[in-house]
């Protein structure tokens, strides 16, 4: 892997952000709306004085974490779609750029995007609702890392589907993650799900993160098995999606569809 090639694509995406107000809006608009809606809901639920349930920390924590996951997936997919929309795949793949470097660049674009979202979300949730994400302390690092990894896997997976089926599948870049949400125990514990769906929930790294977050917020400690579960499932998804993407890339090259994606 050559970092200068990854850097070239990263800077290319930064040029777009520099002058595109809608792109910046896309990063902050949805998270801000989420924070407002869920923040007011949390304030309302808090007034109901439900014993043992701190709505602001649990719900806002969940919203912030969900947006990290959402942005992580979306950024990888949109960085890929940008190349398709601009009919740039041919240009970049006739350079010595490797597939791994291409994916690495989309991931780095995601890191920048998530950093921006993180700053906006943590600031707003503290300013409006006095919710301090950093009360999660050290656990923030493995939680966020785990959400990043899962988001990247989902992003790479949707990109592989777009490679295979063309731009008619691009809606997945924006909607696929919603499929994961009901089973990830974002706003409620896994135990709230029917038994069959609890099994599905256990297969998702995000479930371990959201369960872990609630555990840290309520007890101040994190059961080790939740961390292990998050990283173990992440490792499996990452390997599988990278393999799947590489296979789909070979497929489109074999079928001569790489450039037809841009039509």
């Amino acid at each position, binding site marked *: 892997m*050559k970092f200068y090639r990854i850097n070239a694509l990263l800077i290319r995406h930064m040029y777009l952000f520099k002058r595109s107000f809608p792109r910046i809006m896309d990063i902050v608009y949805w998270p801000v709306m989420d924070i407002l809606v869920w923040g007011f809901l949390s304030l309302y639920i808090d007034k109901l004085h439900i014993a043992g349930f701190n709505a602001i920390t649990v719900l806002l924590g969940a919203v912030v974490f969900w947006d990290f996951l959402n942005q992580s997936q979306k950024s990888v997919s949109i960085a890929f779609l940008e190349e398709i929309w601009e009919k740039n795949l041919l240009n970049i793949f006739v350079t*010595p750029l490797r597939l791994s470097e291409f994916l690495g660049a989309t991931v780095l674009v995601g890191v920048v995007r998530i950093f921006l979202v993180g700053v906006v979300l943590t600031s707003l949730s503290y300013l409006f609702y006095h919710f301090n994400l950093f009360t999660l302390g050290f656990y923030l690092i493995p939680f966020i890392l785990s959400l990043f990894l899962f988001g990247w896997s989902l992003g790479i997976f949707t990109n592989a589907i777009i490679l295979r089926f063309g731009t008619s599948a691009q809606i997945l870049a924006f909607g696929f993650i919603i499929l994961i949400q009901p089973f990830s125990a974002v706003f409620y514990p896994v135990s709230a799900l029917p038994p069959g769906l609890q099994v599905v929930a256990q297969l998702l790294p995000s479930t371990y993160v959201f369960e872990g977050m609630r555990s840290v917020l309520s007890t101040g400690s994190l059961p080790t098995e939740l961390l292990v579960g998050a990283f173990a499932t992440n490792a499996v998804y990452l390997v599988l999606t990278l393999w799947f993407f590489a296979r789909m890339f070979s497929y489109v090259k074999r079928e001569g569809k790489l450039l037809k994606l841009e039509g």
Partner: protein
Amino acid sequence: MSAIIEVDNLVKEFGSVRAVDGLFFRVEEGTITGLLGPNGAGKTTTIQMLLDLITPTSGTIRIFGKEYASDREAILQQLNFSSPYVSLPGNLTVYENLLTFGRLYGVKELRKKIDELVDFFEIRDFLKKMTYNLSTGQLTRLNLTKALLNDPKLLLLDEPTASLDPDIADRTRQLLMRIQKERGVTILYTSHNMEEVEEICDKVIFIQHGKFKDEGVPAELVKKYGHEDLNDVFLHIARQT
């Protein structure tokens, strides 16, 4: 002269369609070679296989004596491509596009390199323009500038003068001949303009139905087929069954 491109028994099948059928040819170092054939002859598929954008069904492609399976990076580092049908990202300025592609090739002293090429192709006046605002002629010059950023030994040009007015097309041809002469770049060139091909190509290769049909120096082919010009030779070969 040694061969820069060696294509042997190249086959590309898309389902039941054989787009390229046992094609073979050589492109010699330091020449401008025309790859000619009617629509659907397999030129684009062949060019895309030469660029590793399509994987051949069978056969071999050697560029600089190397194969993509083992030396993809080394091959693409010394090769570039330009086509009026492939535009650079419109939402970047001309200069940003050149910086991006220069960085992808790891060009040393990139800004100096761009400066030199910008003068060569006379594009300095619109460096700050958004690429989507360029005229067809300006885009062609930008594509060619991009194609020379990495000092390629081999340039694949797909109809570089298509959609250009006669004046800009002529200037582009002069530029290409100058590039070839001054930099010793080997050029593989596709075009449907036989007058242009006669003017700039040292050699032409005719393909039809994905197969090699004939090759030679344009003037010699005209003589061999007993026609007046290369356009008639093209028609002769294209209408063979």
